[in-house]
């Protein structure tokens, strides 16, 4: 779960990290009021769950409150990469002498928290990593022992931070690590952490992503979830406990298991790409695949207008294919889709399952034996409608 910039920075503040004294506005008038209070140059920043907002015009510097009102009015309601801006952060302008990058993330390979720090902050870490990987100091943290003081000295020293800032940097890094662990963050990033003209450190921009699997023990963070820019279908799926991701293609996929679901998507693209045909979604129906779940998933898939065909790919292991077939028929009758459905059942009781489907004699229901066959038939079904 991603936090907005303002949520991230307010969270940092709870862990003793200095941030600008800005506030959030949802209207131009509010932005005007906040700017008047701040009295001076302010920065108006769109709060959306997507990168590159600066280039998209979502960040503006205003010299006074009147300008702030104007810019907030411009930015609020703006569409950035398909997401609507509903909030702006109005921050006082900072006197920036140096931009530092500082982040803590889960290193998958090492299985340990990883601190990354660089004196060349401001730009994207991936970009920095491509251009000047040697400019990034990397330090793992022992997941039991936690961050040690000597590691903070090492990082400050290795990155070339001026000694005058070592003590305040250590305090910020300590706070960020605490924030990272206590919030179950996958990423806690300050970019840039700036050195001001007075030599103070200030977290000017921040990004926090919370581990979805840990939300059960982060009730205060869950309350901050902002779903206003989440696609409706994904929200419905999340509420139904189904993992669904909307894509741009025409073949709606309903599969059991995440790996097989990705594979099924890949197959539709493998055989359809030449004709501009591909997957309309990722959907993992999970282990059970009861008629209720199948029906809910089917409704979500069909809510996408691009969908011209639904591809069921179920590998019956513990789940028996005959039961799944019955589930599909029940769901079919309930939802009554107008697009063709390709059904491929394999594994335990596959023969019985396929008989049930073919005996139902529904013209829109196309049976397939292998995954290859299923993908090819789904592609063909879409092409027929073109």
């Amino acid at each position, binding site marked *: 779960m991603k936090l907005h910039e303002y949520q991230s920075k307010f969270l940092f503040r709870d862990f003793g990290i200095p941030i600008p004294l800005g506030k959030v506005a949802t209207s131009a008038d509010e932005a005007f009021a906040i700017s008047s209070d701040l009295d001076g140059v302010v920065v108006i920043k769109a709060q959306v769950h997507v990168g590159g907002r600066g280039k998209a015009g979502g960040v503006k510097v205003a010299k006074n409150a009147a300008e702030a009102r104007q810019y907030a009015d411009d930015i609020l309601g703006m569409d950035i990469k398909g997401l609507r801006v509903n909030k702006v952060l109005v921050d006082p302008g900072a006197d920036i002498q140096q931009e530092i990058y500082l982040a803590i993330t*889960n290193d*998958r*390979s090492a*299985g*340990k*928290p990883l601190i990354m720090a660089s004196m060349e902050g401001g730009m*994207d*870490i*991936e970009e920095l*990593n491509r251009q000047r990987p040697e400019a990034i100091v990397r330090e793992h943290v*022992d*997941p*039991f022992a936690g961050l040690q003081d000597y590691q903070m000295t090492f990082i400050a020293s290795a990155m070339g931070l001026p000694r005058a800032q070592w003590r305040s940097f250590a305090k910020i890094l300590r706070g960020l690590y605490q924030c990272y*662990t206590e919030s*179950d963050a*996958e990423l806690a990033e300050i970019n840039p952490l700036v050195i001001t003209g007075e030599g103070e450190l200030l977290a000017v921009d921040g990004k926090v992503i919370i*581990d*979805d*699997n*840990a939300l*059960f*023990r982060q009730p205060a963070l869950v309350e901050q979830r902002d779903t206003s820019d989440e696609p409706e279908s994904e929200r419905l799926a999340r509420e139904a406990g189904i*993992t669904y*991701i909307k*894509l741009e293609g025409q073949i709606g996929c309903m*599969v*059991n*298991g*995440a*790996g*097989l*679901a*990705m*594979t099924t*998507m*890949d*197959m*539709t*693209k*493998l055989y359809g790409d030449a004709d501009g045909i*591909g*997957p309309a979604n*990722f959907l*993992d129906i999970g282990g059970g695949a009861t008629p209720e779940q199948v029906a809910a998933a089917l409704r979500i898939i069909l809510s996408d207008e691009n969908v011209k065909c639904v591809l069921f790919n179920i*590998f*019956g*292991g*513990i789940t028996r294919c005959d039961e799944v077939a019955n589930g599909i028929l029940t769901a079919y009758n309930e939802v009554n889709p107008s697009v063709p459905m390709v059904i491929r059942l*394999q*594994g*335990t009781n596959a023969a019985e399952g396929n008989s049930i489907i073919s005996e139902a004699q529904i013209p829109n229901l196309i049976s397939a034996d*292998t*995954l*290859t066959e299923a993908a090819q038939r789904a592609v063909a079904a879409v092409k027929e409608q073109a």
Partner: protein
Amino acid sequence: MSILIDRSAKVLVQGITGRQGGFHAKLMMEYGTDVVGGVTPGKGGEWFEGKPVFDTMRSAVETTNADVSLVTVPARFAGDAVMEAADAGIRLVICLTEHIPVADMMQVVEFCRQRGTRLIGPNCPGVMTPGQAKVGIIPAMVAMPGNAGVVSKSGTLTYEVGFAMKNAGIGISTIVGIGGDPVIGTTFVEVLEMFENDPETEKVALLGEIGGSAEIVAADYIRNAMTKPVAAFIAGRSAPAGKRMGHAGAIVDGGEGSAEEKIQALEAAGARVAANPEEIPGLLA
């Protein structure tokens, strides 16, 4: 012997009195796995299908001399269960549970490492040595005994490939589902190394997916140290960047972990990479 488990493995099921734990314990016993008991705190003294249930792993291991454990308890208790198994001296812990927080797993993996316990998973289908034993949820029907090793991040995709191999007449030495989480106990490389050293295994199928760099590291190992042929499939070529595809680990992030780079690395290392998993049997034949 095969890798990780064979018919001599003595297995405890942690969470055996739960619905999922009990269901799979029964299937494992039917398959021939030597399930010697189970553990559910507060239910010690009960019996499950003729096997004793214990309150703690320590008492269970003392009584049964089990060396393998299957963890089937809910996510918020699973980390503790794995550590309990490691502390009780279990050699191999297989953790099916999904949705365990990464922070917990980083500690659990370190805990197991310190105590010399091998952990498979979490969020994995388990391990099966066809014809001998299975620990986990891999269906009996997806594989027959043979000389190809299978290692995979995924569940049903593994069944799919195993089943296709079976239909093509290719048997399997051991299937290892390592799991699709970002932080897992055993990586591709470690399993490849076991297969490389296993006299029963002559070739290996590797089933990867987007996210992380485990397949790239595996490619390095294949190039530098592997003598046995490897066929591979990487799921997620059509997945968009920045989205988590079901598995907590399946996400292309900041340009890293894409299917393309993994496929390239594997091909450069001499593995044969299938565009379609149903080609795997052909590549292994």
